[in-house]
């Protein structure tokens, strides 16, 4: 009949006979005739494999791959080839959520390893596996905070990634949570503004680390004034936590974010993977899947989904979150990445990005075409103010097959340098900007 349909006419005939109906149409006899489609869908005709390839080739010709100096929430990182080789094994790729633990130990164990690695990076006690992306993980984190504190206001730093802010605002608006923005001052959180906004209704303060501008803000100061049960929620880039002071060390209650830098390709924005890690005391408020270790009837080690009474399929309208399908395979992707890199590798890529970014930062300043707008420490992204028209510069770079930094207001440009950029690529970028190429 068709390559994905195994039914022969003889099969269909025999099966209809067993059922006791005369035709396939009769299987739908209860459907009111006025809503029957009675026509083909208005979509293209069936494509053979060769036709698919030639069509896809016509599409890929319309995409451009650049040398990328842009981050802002999606990073051009090194992706070891082994990862997709392993994640495309059908046992991982084509299996369902591990509700039957006896035949899902593979999925369950990597979830457990994911939780372990996220806890290790963030310095917190418990992690789930997994959330959709960084922004939705942040929104779910504020639900945890309002639920545990029974308060209804959340303060967001204006220095968070604007897409995190947008998504959190959307979620909060419908859930009925009040969001107040904490102003920024020279690209960092305005501490006095934060102080003035704290009151007895504040459930949590959400900050970025590194923040949207790549800046490392000193959140000890924030932690120290949260003395009235407010939670500190840190939206972090987890890979950098291999070298940076962790949310645990800052005394944060929740760390959340996007795991894309843990070896996930850019993929036009997804799939990536979100995560939430928290202090032990917040375990029962965590959304999503959590895997625990236990034993089977023979005393053998095994893994199961646990604490499921938190989740929608049991708690229904009383559940704190509605998440069901998540980004499990992408969690596996990051687990394999972290296993390959290990302690040394994670630290090396982080320091490489950090060092590269600082090199480019200094080289760009040397052109005298940019000026600094802040003296704060930064990680692998930084903002410089361009003396010319930043949009024109962006266009010029594209013509040289370079995706430059993200253009912000006032001709400010947010550059990003990952471990993938070589000295030659950075020098070439500077040359073009200077007009030497």
């Amino acid at each position, binding site marked *: 009949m068709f390559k994905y349909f195994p039914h022969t006419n003889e099969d269909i005939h025999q099966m209809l006979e067993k*059922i006791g109906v005369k035709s396939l149409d009769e299987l739908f006899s209860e459907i009111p005739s006025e809503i029957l489609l009675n026509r083909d869908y208005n979509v293209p005709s069936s494509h053979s494999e060769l036709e698919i390839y030639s069509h896809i080739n016509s599409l890929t010709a319309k995409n451009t791959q650049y040398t990328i100096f842009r981050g802002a929430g999606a990073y051009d990182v090194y992706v070891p080839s082994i990862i997709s080789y392993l994640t495309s094994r059908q046992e991982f790729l084509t299996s369902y959520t591990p509700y039957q633990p006896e035949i899902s130990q593979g999925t369950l164990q990597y979830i457990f390893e994911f939780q372990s690695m996220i806890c290790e990076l963030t310095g917190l006690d418990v992690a789930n596996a997994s959330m959709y992306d960084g922004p939705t993980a942040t929104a779910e984190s504020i639900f945890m905070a309002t639920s545990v504190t029974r308060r209804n206001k959340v303060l967001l730093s204006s220095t968070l990634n604007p897409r995190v802010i947008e998504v959190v605002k959307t979620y909060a608006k419908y859930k009925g949570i009040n969001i107040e923005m904490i102003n920024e001052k020279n690209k960092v959180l305005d501490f006095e503004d934060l102080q003035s906004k704290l009151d007895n209704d504040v459930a949590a303060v959400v900050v970025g680390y590194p923040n949207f501008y790549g800046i490392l803000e000193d959140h000890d100061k924030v932690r120290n004034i949260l003395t009235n049960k407010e939670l500190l929620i840190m939206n972090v880039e987890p890979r950098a936590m291999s070298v940076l002071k962790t949310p645990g060390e800052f005394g944060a209650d929740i760390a959340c974010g996007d795991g894309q830098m843990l070896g996930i390709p850019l993929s036009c*924005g997804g799939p990536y993977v979100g995560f939430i890690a928290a202090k032990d005391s917040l375990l029962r408020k965590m959304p999503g899947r959590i895997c625990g270790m236990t034993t089977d009837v023979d005393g053998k080690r095994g893994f199961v989904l646990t604490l499921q009474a938190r989740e929608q399929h049991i708690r229904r309208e009383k559940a704190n979150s509605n998440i069901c399908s998540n980004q499990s395979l992408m969690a596996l992707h990051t687990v394999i990445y972290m296993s390959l890199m290990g302690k040394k590798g994670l630290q090396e890529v982080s320091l490489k990005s950090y060092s590269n970014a600082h090199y480019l930062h200094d080289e760009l300043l040397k052109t005298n075409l940019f000026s600094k707008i802040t003296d704060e420490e930064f990680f692998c992204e930084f903002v410089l103010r361009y003396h010319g028209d930043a949009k024109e510069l962006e266009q010029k770079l594209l013509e040289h097959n370079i995706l430059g930094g993200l253009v912000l207001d006032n001709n400010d440009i947010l550059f990003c340098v990952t471990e993938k950029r070589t000295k030659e690529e950075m020098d070439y970028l500077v040359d073009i900007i200077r007009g030497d190429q």
Partner: protein
Amino acid sequence: MDSRLIFEKSHKGRFAYSLPKQDNYLEIPTKFKRTSSLNMPEVSELDVVRHYTNLSRKNYGVDQGFYPLGSCTMKYNPKINDFVASNPSFTNLHPLQPAESMQGALEVYYKTAKYLAEITGMDEVTLNPYAGAHGELVGLMIMKEYHYRRGDYKRTKVIIPDSAHGTNPASVNVAGMEVLEVASNPDGTVNIEDLKAVLSDEVAGIMLTNPNTLGIFEKDILAIKELARQYGALLYYDGANLNALLGITRPGDMGFDIVHLNLHKTFSTPHGGGGPGSGPVGVKKELAELLPNPRVVYEDGKYQIKYLPTAIGQISNFFGNFLVVLRAYTYILTLGKENLKYVGKLAVLNANYIKESLKDYYQVAVPGLCKHEVVFSGLKSKAVSTLDVAKRLLDYGYHPPTIYFPLIVHEALMVEPPETESKEILDGFIETMKTIAKEAIENPELLKTAPHNTVVRRLDEATAARKPILKYQDIINN
């Protein structure tokens, strides 16, 4: 089989990566430097390959065998979809590239949305939601916002039948609305009289799964639509079971205003052990301006990315799970209009064939024809529980059906045999189910202690929840 964690295979000094040489790295300023130790696995490349290859062998996927998991539509996941989705021209695209430089990707997004709008009978579709439940949430935000913008502030309640998936009421709660649960008829369909009793000018919408979770088509759907219109409520279609109706009828034609789909069910993208999925949301024209940002539009001869001020806002980082969308796009093109129209028919044929073949051994929950899935209410003999039957199926190499759902069926056993399964596969499953029914009478102990052949046997879930061990660090600290 080895059940050590990758951490437990660690040997100090091993590593499995290579980076271009660099002489020296800058130091992180002390104030921001990590001071705690970092305990990550230190293993060789082959260690990693073996570890995860062996882990995969403890799983069960669709490529291995029949996966009749009800409500999950575990159909064959075509390999060409994955091949296309691994094309570097897509995987290397930065989501914040200028639209002109990613016309191919935007075309995929735009056309997939168009095709899905046609297939569901809706006017516009967003592909930004990451999963079915995410789609539900987005659909409900749209519902709430629609009433709110009309100044109809009192509409805060959503009617949901008690046979619904748990995500429905949970999504209503997250969207800041209130659930009005209505008891269903014994076949899971909406009881029109009960529906009338709860309808009021406070109802924002009615959320239905059609066919419902008992695999039964909501034959009063047009009457429900009239009632909804009369009371000013919107109709929401949970697309979890759309596979049954592919080619037959469209939610838009049934009168639904908002639809979400699961590309990882109906449109063949792999489940990935729990995700990534994709949960597109389609709406009728009057609601289209509310769809979340970013939007992909076709204007002036090119695809463009738009942020509309009328939208409910943003609900995802970028364009959702783009590579999943790309797989579904490939699937739709591969089947084309000539084959899409048979999906529902063959899926429903398969389900009824199983129903007829097993009805003497397992209690059919609803007599008559079912749609894409059949729900049994346990063994006719009642010799053992549904759980025992499911666990015994593991010994025979099958993934068990969904069990204990829907909640309104006692000892529920929900079998969904998608259209990609052949008669021989179904016959094999039927024979095994009959054998198990006989074993249940002759040797119930065998079932109660099943599975016997799996890498682990029944696990102690109570202890796992009472004394949670949730990370490697908990093991070494114990």
